[in-house]
């Protein structure tokens, strides 16, 4: 006697599921669907904080992610750097991850080699400090004391940018692009103790933790995952990987939801039969 359909569905070979997800993600890369991206309030507030910056203003940018989450985080970083440097905003960058310098390096090159910014005057990369809590708190007192030398071993006291801006109070904004709880820590310590204005980019998983801080105004705006990055690309009119990736993410999610529904229909069919 042939097995009923729901038994086939409930014992589905996981490799079929893997192939379906792979196709759902890959096909829109080859044949873009051009699905709409509508910016949410959190992303609009994130962008508004960038829009308020004036030429000559200084921001602190933290690369709080490593290579594993570049697909989600790099599009956010790209837009923030291009938008800010294009408007004459100065960037002091650092990272709280050991793998962060490798992630940051292409943006230092983007600034100095492609956009013609002067290292030390328009942009500085402080590098990595292993103690994130001590680093965030100490930066509120002195950037130069926290990082006596930059990533490349040069004295930070010699940089005109760090002579101008040496603590949070000298900067207009802190931007953290974080794949972990670091966005929360920047909020708690840099905003909570030093009243610095913080905006954050987070992975889709981490973004849910930022809602309490956003509602109270401790985080002025945030981006959640690839969707947040695509919304920022749209707001800044700098379309890129996130906008293209949203098609794949949409079809990927849709396929997973269809499989979940199929599993539940099969489950109820089996239960009905047994009862």
């Amino acid at each position: 006697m042939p097995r009923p359909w729901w038994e086939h569905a409930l014992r589905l070979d996981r490799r079929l599921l893997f192939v379906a997800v792979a196709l759902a993600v890959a096909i829109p890369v080859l044949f873009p669907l051009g699905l709409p991206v509508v910016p949410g309030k959190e992303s609009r507030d994130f962008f508004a904080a960038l829009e308020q910056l004036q030429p000559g203003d200084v921001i602190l940018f933290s690369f709080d992610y490593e290579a594993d989450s570049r697909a989600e985080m790099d599009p956010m970083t790209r837009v923030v750097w291009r938008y800010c440097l294009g408007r004459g905003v100065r960037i002091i960058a650092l990272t709280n991850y050991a793998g962060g310098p490798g992630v940051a390096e292409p943006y230092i090159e983007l600034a100095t080699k492609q956009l013609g910014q002067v290292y030390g005057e328009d942009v500085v990369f402080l590098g990595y400090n292993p103690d994130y809590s001590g680093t965030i708190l100490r930066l509120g007192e002195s950037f130069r004391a926290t990082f006596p030398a930059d990533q490349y071993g040069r004295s930070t006291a010699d940089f005109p940018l760090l002579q101008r801006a040496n603590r949070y109070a000298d900067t207009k904004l802190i931007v953290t692009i974080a794949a972990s709880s670091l966005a929360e820590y920047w909020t708690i310590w840099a905003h909570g103790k030093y009243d610095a204005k913080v905006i954050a980019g987070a992975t889709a998983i981490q973004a849910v933790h930022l809602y309490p801080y956003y509602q109270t105004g401790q985080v002025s705006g945030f981006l959640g995952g690839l969707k947040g990055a695509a919304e920022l690309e749209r707001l800044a009119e700098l379309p890129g990987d996130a906008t293209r990736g949203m098609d794949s993410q949409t079809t990927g999610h849709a396929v997973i939801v269809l499989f979940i529904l199929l599993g539940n229909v099969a489950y109820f069919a089996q239960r009905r039969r047994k009862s």
Partner: protein
Amino acid sequence: MKTTLPILFGFLVGLVMFVQYFFSHPSLQRTYNLVLDWKQIVFGMMLILGTIGLVRHHGVRIQRRERAWGYSAVTLSGLVAVILAGVGGGVQGGPYAWSFENVQSPMQSTIFALLAFYVASAAYRAFRARTVHATLLLCAGIIVMLGRVSIGEMLGFSVGDARYSLAGLSGWILDVPNLAAKRGILIGVGLGVSATALKILLGIERSYLGKGD
């Protein structure tokens, strides 16, 4: 003595860090900065200890030819190669940057991307509407999954100027029930951290000293 001195030291440092938060006397400020500098130095030392531990652990595995010792050899080779690349060619460009862009970055991205397949498989097998609670979780999960992508905006309707969509419903779930639960957890964690800090300061909580006396 081995117990009393660390407790006394912890109490004094903790007290200074607590008091400085409420007063801005220059001497307290200097002490605060000094403690933060020491803290960063201690963390730097931890990195060195971690590296020594890694080398010893894998070195012993290779020496004893333990099962899968080849992986230990690969780990140590990677460590030595990256250190040599960084020290020899600098961290800007050269072999160090090349290995990050062409070895570390693709490997880490690949492992992270594999999660999508495992999540899909796990969701298919485990996400069942077996009980009321499971059904609520399932519905919320599906709404957020679809609401957080472009299709969420398309699945909706307009009444006058107002737009009602799956993306809006997803936003409400994150903004109201999720926020309420998260805030409750945060307040609980905050109270717990404060209580534990107080116990450490007063020497009631001593587990951080270890078992020995």
